[in-house]
């Protein structure tokens, strides 16, 4: 295979990384990549970006024998046992505390990363405020997991038969309901795919006052009472 137009190289690289380039064409492209800086660069471009799709994957802890198999295949020392696995050998008493501390540290890091993989980093934030500047609600969006967290600061009073409802305002589209706001405390909820996509395509969110339980039509029945910009967390 010889160099072609950059657009063709990019198209092939994209399908190679996506996985739809198959068979002999895939093997030829892999060989071409090994010798072409342009092909390598385009493949890296797609690998770096498309890997974000894996945020949709639920992490699963592999069983312990997988690590044991890796260790055996690489002929690594037994010290490579995973935390939590029972130590088969007696250790010197003087080292026990240090080893235990190391194991706890590693286990803690693994737990932290596992949680992070599930919840993901904070993607966007917004603070809904009254005209006076008083903070009413703060909103956090965790794009990877589709989690929305709303914290009530000083929400305004409302009639007993009414609720405040949160809306995403996607560019060029209709408002999309993100649910009824909590009168107090912290509320966490999982967004649907369409809600998340609408939110990520929005520069602003808004609040309206609707009947109890939220607008029955799925669209706001009044003009927005409060609007706040979404800030992308970098």
């Amino acid at each position, binding site marked *: 295979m010889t160099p072609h137009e950059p657009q063709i190289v990019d198209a092939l690289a994209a399908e190679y990384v996506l996985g739809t380039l198959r068979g002999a064409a895939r093997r030829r492209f892999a060989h071409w990549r090994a010798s072409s800086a342009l092909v390598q660069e385009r493949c890296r471009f797609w690998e770096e970006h498309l890997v974000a799709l*894996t945020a949709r994957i639920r992490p699963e802890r592999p069983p312990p024998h997988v690590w044991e198999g890796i260790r055996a295949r690489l002929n690594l020392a037994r010290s490579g046992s995973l935390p939590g696995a029972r130590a088969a050998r007696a250790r010197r008493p003087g080292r026990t505390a240090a080893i235990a501390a190391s194991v706890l540290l590693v286990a803690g890091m693994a737990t932290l990363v596992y949680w*992070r993989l599930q919840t993901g980093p904070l993607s966007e934030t917004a603070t809904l405020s009254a005209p006076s500047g008083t903070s009413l609600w703060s909103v956090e969006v965790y794009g990877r997991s589709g989690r929305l967290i709303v914290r009530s600061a000083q929400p305004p009073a409302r009639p007993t038969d009414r609720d405040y409802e949160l809306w995403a305002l996607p560019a060029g589209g209709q408002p999309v309901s993100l649910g009824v706001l909590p009168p107090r405390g912290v509320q966490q909820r999982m967004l649907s795919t369409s809600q998340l996509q609408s939110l990520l395509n929005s520069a602003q969110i808004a609040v309206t006052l609707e009947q109890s339980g939220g607008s029955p039509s799925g669209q706001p029945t009044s003009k927005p009472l409060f609007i706040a910009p979404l800030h992308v967390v970098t």
Partner: protein
Amino acid sequence: MLLERCAAGDPGALQRLYELTSPLLFGCLNRMLHRRALAEEALQDVFVSIWQRAAQFRASRGRPMAWMMSIARYRAIDLLRKERAAPALVAELPEPAAESLQSQDPSETWAAPQGMLERCLALLNERQRQCLELAFLGGKSHEDISRLTGSPLGTVKSWIRRALQSLRSCLEA
């Protein structure tokens, strides 16, 4: 940097790397291969490959998770191809493919940032997004996607080609 330590032959670094990244890699392999035993074998292949090729990793060119995920996905695609060619031999796993992958992550951030891609995906229509997910996350071929969606093969290829063109324009804007 754990991959650098792996390249230097530090088994503890590989162990730490495994603890941090194996849940996501295993989840990916499970989803693509649909068989837990096969995914477990593939995960072993992947970490053997990571250990052997860690010296190829260049932190200036990318993030570690993208590099490792690519190794895992390409391994799964290779296994899927072999499984179709000779289903009876699936259990006889070959040595890891000698593909030349060079992407890395200087910050050692294992989770992939997704904001930019998500924003660009939002510009695609539902069928295009579905095709990309079936291919990337499910390991499906054009033909598989055609069967799953009930759409003509040519249409599926066109959706994917246009989706990738749109993504490229958005990502490079």
